[in-house]
């Protein structure tokens, strides 16, 4: 078994992993990236459409371009990227963390380090997660898998398509499938509003005349060997209208029903999860409950913009470097998700520093107000033109905002939206 040792190891070579590694390297620590795929870049390599990078590069790029531009920053650094290496097990109990990895070329690797940054991204929710009744025929794919098949492997999985769920990946795939000659017959969404961006509704559905059925539930997937159709039932006033159910013939179903952080390794290492983000619970340094184990990007909470992923990952890398130098937050407060806020990441703030928080709301609203209370007193209020669950909200809280929390026995920062 080959043995390797670094100051820090990053699991996952997507946008998050690369950005975190760059900070650790810049701070003078040796760093390896362990990536399961044959190339770096993560999910971005299959997202060939435009719209990435407005914040990071001030231009609109496709996913592969964004990934390459970040990857180019690794050149000339001391970062050691390993591709084709899957981390199978993590033991983070001691001062030195141990990762057991498998690689086609190196065999089994044992990698030790003082710091581990989790950057494994997320996985798609699948049919099992949402319990659609019916047969189990071939032709049912998650939208992200279909994206990979079409965009990288050049394999178009069907001709007549119905997409279940109106998340952005599903919408993007509606256009992509149309552009490779498929007929997309419908997008079916259980909620009364679409979960993807308006821009994508317009350019990926309206442009192709694809109907969007809101407040409709997929009640049956029909087909013996191959999908033959899906049965759709309208929901009115919270009740299913069975007599109005109808069937859309198709040979392919794509599911775009959400993403969940990749947690297998985290759980194995005793990392506590946050029930709202489904990813690790982290403190103001983006460190998990396991000392020396940090998290960023989609493994921490599901992001909609890679620009935010990179920003967050940079913070995680910089914090990990500070932690290696022995720095710790002086005093922290817990962040509580108040009315209409689903979660905030991280879940703790450093009272002596500028904190950046990402959060998601539960509501769709124009002219909303985001309010921050420390121990029940309002310390900050921010106006938002428009908010919706699919768009992450960023917030900065500095020492001035948080000064009343200093010295309080168990300070709580509550964020609410009205």
């Amino acid at each position, binding site marked *: 078994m080959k043995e390797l040792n670094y100051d820090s190891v990053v699991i996952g070579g997507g946008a998050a992993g690369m950005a975190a590694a760059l900070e650790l390297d810049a701070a003078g620590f040796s760093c390896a990236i362990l990536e399961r795929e044959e190339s770096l870049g993560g999910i971005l390599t299959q997202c*060939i459409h435009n719209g990435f990078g407005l914040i990071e590069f001030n231009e609109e790029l496709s996913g592969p371009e964004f990934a390459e531009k970040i990857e180019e920053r690794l050149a000339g650094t001391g970062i050691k990227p390993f591709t084709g290496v899957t981390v199978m097990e993590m033991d983070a109990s001691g001062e030195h963390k141990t990762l057991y990895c498998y690689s086609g070329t190196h065999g089994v690797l044992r990698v030790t380090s003082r710091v581990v940054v989790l950057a494994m991204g997320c996985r798609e929710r699948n049919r099992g997660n949402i319990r659609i009744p019916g047969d189990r025929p071939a032709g049912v794919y998650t939208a992200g898998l279909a994206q990979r098949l079409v965009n990288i492997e050049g394999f178009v999985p069907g001709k007549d398509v119905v997409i279940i769920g109106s998340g952005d990946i599903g919408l993007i795939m509606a256009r992509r499938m149309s552009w490779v000659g498929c007929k997309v017959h419908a997008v079916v969404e259980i909620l009364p509003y679409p979960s993807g961006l308006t821009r994508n509704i317009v350019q990926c559905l309206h442009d192709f005349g694809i109907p969007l059925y809101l407040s409709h539930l997929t009640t049956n997937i029909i087909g013996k060997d191959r999908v033959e159709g899906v049965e759709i039932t309208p929901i009115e006033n919270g009740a299913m209208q069975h007599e109005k159910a109808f069937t859309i013939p198709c040979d392919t179903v794509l599911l775009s029903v959400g993403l969940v952080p990749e947690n297998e390794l985290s759980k194995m290492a005793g990392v506590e999860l946050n029930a709202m983000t489904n990813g690790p619970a982290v403190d103001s340094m983006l460190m998990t409950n396991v000392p020396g184990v940090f998290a960023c990007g989609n493994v921490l909470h599901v992001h909609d913009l890679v620009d935010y992923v990179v920003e967050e990952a940079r913070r995680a890398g910089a914090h990990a470097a500070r932690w290696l130098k022995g720095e710790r937050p002086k005093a922290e407060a817990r962040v509580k998700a108040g009315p209409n806020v689903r979660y905030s990441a991280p879940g703790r703030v450093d009272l002596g520093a500028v904190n950046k928080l990402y959060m998601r709301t539960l509501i769709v609203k124009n002219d909303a107000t985001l309010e921050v209370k420390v121990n029940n007193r309002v310390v900050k209020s921010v106006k938002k033109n428009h908010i919706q669950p699919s768009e992450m909200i960023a917030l900065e809280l500095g020492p001035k905002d948080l000064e009343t929390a200093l010295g309080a026995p168990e300070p709580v920062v509550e964020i609410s939206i009205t």
Partner: protein
Amino acid sequence: MSEELICITCPLGCHLSVDRLGDGNLAVTGNRCPRGVKYANEELLSPKRVVSATAAIVAPGSRAGTLIGGPPGGAPAHGLGDVARLPVRSTAAFPKQDVPELLAAIYALRVEPPVKRGDVLIRDFKGSGVDVIATRTL
């Protein structure tokens, strides 16, 4: 009769009502800012889209142009792992009604690696001033 549009310039998503006036101009209501008027004019008079797609990769050195990935539906590539298609995009937004023509030109491409991100694969398509470039280095 008014035409209904959703402005996508910002996340607010104003619902616009647009009437075509006799002089060829548009009367826009429902917008919360001037960008709504600009959007309605572009979208109704000369709609444009950035096009992203993939091109077939041919085996290096193969004169006959053997397809590695082939057109959609082909087998996975060899030598490039599973990568059988080269991602490409237009360098600017392109007239919407001509997008199918541009796509057909992209699908007719046979690209031989090595190819670098930014390499121009189609220059100034039909005099539009829009190029098609590779978005990945293979």
